[in-house]
């Protein structure tokens, strides 16, 4: 069954931010936080970041890469890319419908 980012409860948004960040290339935790703040304008705390990361890893949407550094990099998996695409398409449709209603109001 395909995993959905929106199934992660209060971690849905942080998980979406992480997937968007990793879609731009592999990153470790601190780089993800910086990237998310720059791209999404959201500031994730360390507890939230790792709460979402653990859920994404458990569902096979991201995977850790081996590293000699203590800072372990992560990358998005094929399932993660598919889930991200699905979620962004939903948001795109939602945004288009909302903007359309605003235009005709």
């Amino acid at each position, binding site marked *: 069954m395909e995993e959905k980012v929106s199934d992660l409860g209060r971690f849905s948004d942080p998980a979406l931010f992480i997937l968007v960040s990793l879609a731009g290339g592999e990153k*470790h*935790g*601190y780089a993800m936080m910086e990237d998310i703040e720059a791209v999404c304008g959201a*500031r994730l*705390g*360390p507890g*939230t970041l*790792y709460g979402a990361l*653990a859920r994404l*890893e458990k569902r096979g949407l991201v995977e850790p890469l081996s590293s000699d550094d203590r800072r372990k990099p992560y990358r998005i998996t094929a399932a993660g890319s598919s889930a991200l695409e699905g979620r962004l398409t939903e948001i795109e449709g939602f945004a288009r419908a909302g903007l359309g209603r605003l235009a005709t109001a």
Partner: protein
Amino acid sequence: MWPARRLVRLYPRAWRERYEEEFVALLEERPASLFDLQDIALGALDAWLRPQVALERRVRGMIGRMRNSVLLVLWAWVGVVVAGVGFQKMTEYEDFARAARQNITIGAAFDAVVVGALLALAAVLVGGLPIAFAAVRGALAEGRKDVPLLLCVPPLSLAAFVGYVLLVGKVVCPVVGCTTVQSLVNVVLFLSIAGVFMLAAVASAASVSVAVRRSEVGENIYRFALYPAGLAALAMVVVSTATVVWGLALWVQAPALFTGDDGILATSTVATWLVVLAVMGGSTCVAVAAVVRGLRAGRTVETSP
């Protein structure tokens, strides 16, 4: 400076084993803030309430328990088979067969032993074959040969045992002359057959256990296998109980036969019966305990959030 290690201690052990190093590295890279402290405290609370790492480990542990339970039932069944062969060897003597024909209790108890043994065999096959198929399929998908080779040990052991019995019966005995039951040659040959049989039984159970432990078999297959395992344990209870009834009925109905020396290799009948009973009873207790433990583990996996 972050008291990073101290903060990470708020998280569960399983979480720390997986994420501690990188989490501490992250905390050391940024200045402390009250927002972060509160976020870490809430993250730790979430890790305790909805464990992502611990849950997986717990489920794996429970699957491991189900697997061990199924394997223990296999070992217990081997124990009952070994004892049952001893019982069969003793009762093939004509006086016992006659007692079974003449007395309904002895006859019914003997029949119950046979039916229980067949039922246990069928249950072991029904529960074990899906596990064996899953193990072989997984091994072949990974290009591994160890698991299929290990699963070849039971049929090869059986073939080796049958071959040895034929060799002794058709070749060795006619040459050396196995005339009297308690002759040294006869005792040695009988003990060698018993030794080969036990070696084959232990090698078979051990090879299956190693093969299954090396394989990734799904929890649903183990959960299914627990029901035939339960049936096998029930059949072992029937076999053990029937063996008790058989001995007690023989004691009452044919005391001379029961207290005589018609056991294996013309030893005491009572002693042979008691040894058979001890092995059967012990194995049956192990099987019942293993099934109860396995079913509890299966229920825990089902009810995990």
